[in-house]
């Protein structure tokens, strides 16, 4: 069994900062690896190296057995890349953008056109195909960009934050497209800062922080190894919040977090639940919400890195810029 994507000890420096500090990763054929991490964690640098756009300072990487440095031409003929920005020529129409790529890849005029039409159809852009791309909405541009990376029928696809800046509806649509590609057997490496996205799409996840892989596994494995479970208690009377915090702190080893009118804490022993219920009952505190649930990837991320994976608030503004 050989890996579709393989990287070993990738290092890339920009002056004093190490964008990548010894990254290893593997993706088996037909799987989707989610690379999760905050802004500046080195995700894009890793993708650029794997897509032959950037030469690492040290380490090696290969795609379907071809070295990204020495055999970059072969690698390029096997991959598709959709970057953080919708890389489409705004002056050209949707059709022309795709025909251009088809012609560059050696398809005949007729083949490029047919291919363009079927991709536009598939990405729900058929009606807009004759319009200049600059008139497209953010979501349409991203879909066109993704379509452009599929013209060469790649076996390995790199999606670098494909949904950053998209509204929730466009994001869900794009997820559907990615799932469709997976059904075709394409190997995908997807970077994202959205935990939900990794949770939804990825077979395996690696977590990047400061240019290093700090954790890897399936979504469930990651949730199991770090957080265990999460207990949430919301008192009916808001003024009792502090008291609830004290009760929880007494019974659970971890330090609870108090925010948004409730107390949240990671628990490793589910039997604390009845103990907390009894204690609250003794004190006459009524809970309006009392829950024990699996920890979310967000909490896993917090536990791993000591900071939250930021949800980019300004992303929404980028759509039409």
């Amino acid at each position, binding site marked *: 069994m050989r890996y579709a994507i393989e990287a070993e000890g990738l290092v890339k420096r920009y002056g004093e900062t190490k964008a990548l500090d010894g990254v*290893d990763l593997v993706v088996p054929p037909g799987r989707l690896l989610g690379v999760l991490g905050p802004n500046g964690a080195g995700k894009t640098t890793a993708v650029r190296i794997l897509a032959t756009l950037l030469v690492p300072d040290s380490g090696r990487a290969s795609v379907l057995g071809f070295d990204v440095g020495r055999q970059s031409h*072969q690698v390029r003929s*096997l991959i*598709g890349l959709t970057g953080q920005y919708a890389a489409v020529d705004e*002056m050209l*129409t949707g059709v022309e953008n795709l025909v251009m790529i088809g012609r560059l890849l050696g398809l005949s005029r007729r083949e490029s056109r047919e291919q363009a039409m079927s991709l536009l159809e598939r990405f729900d852009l058929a009606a807009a195909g004759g319009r200049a791309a600059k008139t497209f909405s953010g979501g349409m541009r991203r879909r066109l960009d993704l379509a452009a990376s599929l013209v060469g029928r790649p076996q390995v696809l790199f999606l670098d934050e494909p949904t950053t800046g998209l509204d929730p509806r466009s994001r869900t649509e794009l997820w559907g497209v990615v799932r469709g590609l997976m059904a075709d057997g394409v190997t995908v490496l997807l970077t994202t800062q959205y935990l939900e996205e990794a949770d939804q799409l990825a077979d395996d996840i690696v977590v990047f922080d400061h240019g290093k892989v700090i954790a890897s596994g399936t979504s469930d494995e990651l949730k199991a190894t770090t957080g265990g479970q999460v207990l949430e208690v919301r008192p009916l009377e808001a003024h009792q919040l502090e008291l609830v915090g004290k009760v929880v702190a007494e019974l659970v080893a971890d330090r609870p977090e108090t925010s948004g009118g409730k107390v949240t804490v990671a628990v490793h022993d589910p039997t604390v639940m009845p103990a907390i219920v009894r204690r609250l009952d003794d004190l006459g505190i009524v809970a309006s919400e009392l829950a024990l649930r699996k920890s979310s990837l967000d909490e896993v991320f917090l536990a791993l890195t000591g900071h939250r994976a930021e949800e980019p608030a300004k992303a929404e503004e980028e759509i039409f810029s």
Partner: protein
Amino acid sequence: MTAITTPLPALPRRVSPGATVRQTLTLAWRSLVQIKHNPWELLDLSIQPIMFLLLFTYVFGGAISGSTGDYLQFALPGLLVQNALFYTLSTAIGLNTDITKGVFDRLRSLPIARTAPLAGRIIADTFKQVWAFALLVGFGMVLGFRISTGVAGLLGALALLVIVALAMSWMSVLIGLKASSPEKVQMIAFSVMMPLTFTSSALVSPDTFPGWLRAWSDVNPVTHLSDAIRGLLIGGEVAGSAMISLLWSAGFVVVFAPLAIRVFRSRV
């Protein structure tokens, strides 16, 4: 980490010369197809010369040359030069737009010749130079400009402008690769090209310049190019000023080609 058991698929190791030419032409087509959508897009950078053409001819023409017709005869060759020089920066603007929009990376991730994006753009920009030249000469002729040297002179003028523009496109490539945004490129264009053309013989005869400006105007390459184009279109001395223009072009290539290639390589 892993054992490769399946043989690697047989894939071409590099781009054939035939494919390189095809890819270059495809990318040239990509820059030119915009003309189909918006034929006047080419005048974006020419609005200034056309405005000058109209303003200078009808407002100052009489005062400068005695009659608007005489001034048009004098100024149109200079405006052609100004336009061509401005237009060389469209290579920089286009290249820089590709880089900032991510199109450059997309092209680099494709299995195509590394030189195709650059060569395709330069071919397209040369074609646009010819198109813009034709528009401006045509517009001038409608206003009353007369070529007194015939078709040979017209073609000679076009050829000289294209050669100079191609030489300057090396500088343009360098600016396009280095500039932080297309707007910056535009700013450079105006703040360098504008004084350069105004302090030359492009729009007015330098005879009335003060001594120091006259001295500068005599060595300003735009002066020699304007004189050569003027000679080629309406008659007069050509050989000397054309030669100096070609020498300047050679100098541009010698200085900027290695720099541009080095920066391009480090990005590709």
